[in-house]
């Protein structure tokens, strides 16, 4: 097997005395669509924050394409080709939709900390940003202030910013949270479209979305992965059923 896109080795995270992540081992192959599910408080978001560099692991390692990235800063990990979205919409509310996407492009297109380019004059930048707007169906909102968008549109923009940089590992934290059924369908189509040929790691509560999108599912309960397999096998697993029966059924 080739080097996995993401590998977690005995990953642990404690906040004070509370052990939130307790020795997680996980391999996510290149091009895989991997979903992480689990009851509330299982540590899904913490796991996300550990992989993306927001938190430093208490013990264990995070490997990206075989390189140890544990303890690196989010921007360093991002530059290596990992991009994430947020559960609570995290966009630049006071910038236009177009500028939001452009901010997602600047580093990856090599503009970095440049103070000798005029952003408006860079045609490659403008074209690429418009292309992404087209992809996420927000072209008609191009010059609107992002904060004024409807909620579902903000979620789409969030995904647009996340994929803009062309990262090959995309991590989405509850992309469908708070959406209606029809909006969810649109977002799922969008996710499928923009993450083609990429590694996708997704946390989601909507089981319909999970079974629709994922190649493999990991079930996280109390900071431990109790099952990691194909959707069919996870659905059939007694351990998973027990874990979910004891707590709130998350199927919405």
């Amino acid at each position, binding site marked *: 097997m080739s080097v996995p896109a993401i590998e977690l080795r005995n990953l642990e995270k404690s906040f004070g005395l509370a052990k939130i992540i307790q020795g997680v081992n996980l391999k996510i192959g290149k091009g895989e669509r991997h979903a992480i599910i689990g009851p509330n408080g299982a540590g899904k978001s913490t796991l996300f924050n550990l992989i993306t560099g927001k938190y430093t692991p208490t013990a264990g390692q995070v490997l990206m394409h075989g390189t140890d990235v544990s303890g690196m800063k989010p921007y360093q990990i991002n530059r290596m080709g990992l991009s994430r979205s947020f559960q609570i919409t*995290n966009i630049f509310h006071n910038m236009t939709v177009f500028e939001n996407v452009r901010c997602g492009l*600047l580093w990856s297109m090599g503009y970095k900390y440049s103070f000798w380019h005029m952003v408006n004059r860079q045609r490659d930048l403008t074209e690429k940003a418009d292309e992404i707007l087209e992809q996420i169906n927000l072209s008609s909102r191009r010059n609107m202030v992002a904060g004024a968008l409807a909620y579902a549109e903000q979620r789409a923009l969030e995904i647009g910013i996340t994929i803009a940089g062309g990262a090959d590992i995309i991590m989405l934290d509850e992309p469908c949270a708070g959406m209606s059924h029809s909006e969810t369908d649109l977002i799922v189509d969008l996710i499928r479209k923009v993450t083609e040929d990429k590694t996708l790691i997704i946390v989601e509560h909507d089981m319909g979305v999970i079974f629709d999108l994922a190649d493999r599912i990991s079930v996280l309960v109390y900071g431990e992965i109790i099952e990691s397999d194909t959707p069919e096998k996870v659905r059939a697993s007694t351990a998973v059923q027990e874990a979910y029966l004891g707590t709130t059924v998350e199927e919405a």
Partner: protein
Amino acid sequence: MSTPSSTPLKAGTQRLIPLNHALPWIIAAVFLLILPYIFDSRSALTIMNQMAITIVFALSYNMLLGQGGMLSFGHAVYMGLGGFFSMHVLNWMSDDPWISLPFLPIFGGLFGLMFAIMIGAFSTRRAGTVFAMISLGVGELVAAMSVIIVIFFGGEEGVSGDRTELLDFFGMSFGPQRQVYYLTAVWLLIAALGMYLYSRTPIGRIANAVRDNEERAEFLGYSQRHVRWISFCASGFFAGIAGALFAINFEILTEENLNLATSGSILLVTFLGGVGFFVGPIIGAIVFTLLQTVLSLYTEIWALYLGILFVSTVMFFPFGLTGLLAIHIQPWKLGKISHLVVPYAKMFIPAVVGVLSAAAVLEILFHARHAGLGEEEMNLYGITFDSHAAMPLIIAIVLAVASFFALVKLAPGLKAAWDEATHMGGAKQ
């Protein structure tokens, strides 16, 4: 979108005037060129120079506050150090000059930059309160050092020099005030244009992004700390230029140029003008300098009025004077600005009477408390009266209260007109 966003610190992705074409710059240049022919007295030139220096300083400050979201209480450090070093360069070269005076601000800028690199290395680690506290500490530190290191800062007398001792620049010795005016004006244009263009570069845009949402910027490949540091250095560079211009104009620098009072007043200037707009600090600097120089000719308590103006700006117009102008863009675009003319005209007289009578109350009280024995007579608005008598005070209070009530009564009318003027579509009945 012409309305500013919910908080002043976070506006700024839209500008009051579309500055992205050259026209406003050409107008500004022509304006600066003819200004000394309109106001040609020596004191007017001094005021204009001071204004230009304050504009450069305030614009550099807004690179931190408005564009980078960094609230600094010690920005005078970079202007002051830039100024002191320029003055030393000037004095050091005076025996054997190899540059002419117009190049001196480059030195000021470089020294400002040098200190910004050094201090920014640790102060920009965190934004918010931590940054503000460190800037305050550094400001106090440098101000205290200026009294201790007499050999460099000149102690209480400060450091002075003679600007005419450098090489002539196309026959200009820069002795006459007008030549200095043009030097300052050219540097004002260079610095303002530089800072404007900076805001349009990738780093300038990302500085806005970090200001609005530092976490998101980190996940887009940008180190928030590096972004703040670079903005901080650019800001220090332009502040240093302002310092050198100060050195050239006044030929003396003292502790006052880098103390906390100066740092505080530039915050005031910038906020007064409006931090969310590129032109905000320019308007703020013009208004502030005019109030400071002109108002102080007429009243001893000008600082009190300035304070009142500042507090009311913060409370009622958090987008500053520029924001106040900017909210009229929407009615203007809708072609409904005429709806506002009548309510504004109605409020004009009570507003003017209100301000003048409230000022009269303050002036009478001040005069009554501070005038020497036998100097009870005071002159206000061309009327001479006894400041210790009750009548003038009562009249002033009555006028102030009456006009306040008139304004309160007229306010709903303005509100209605305002709703109408900003309402899209046809007339609303």
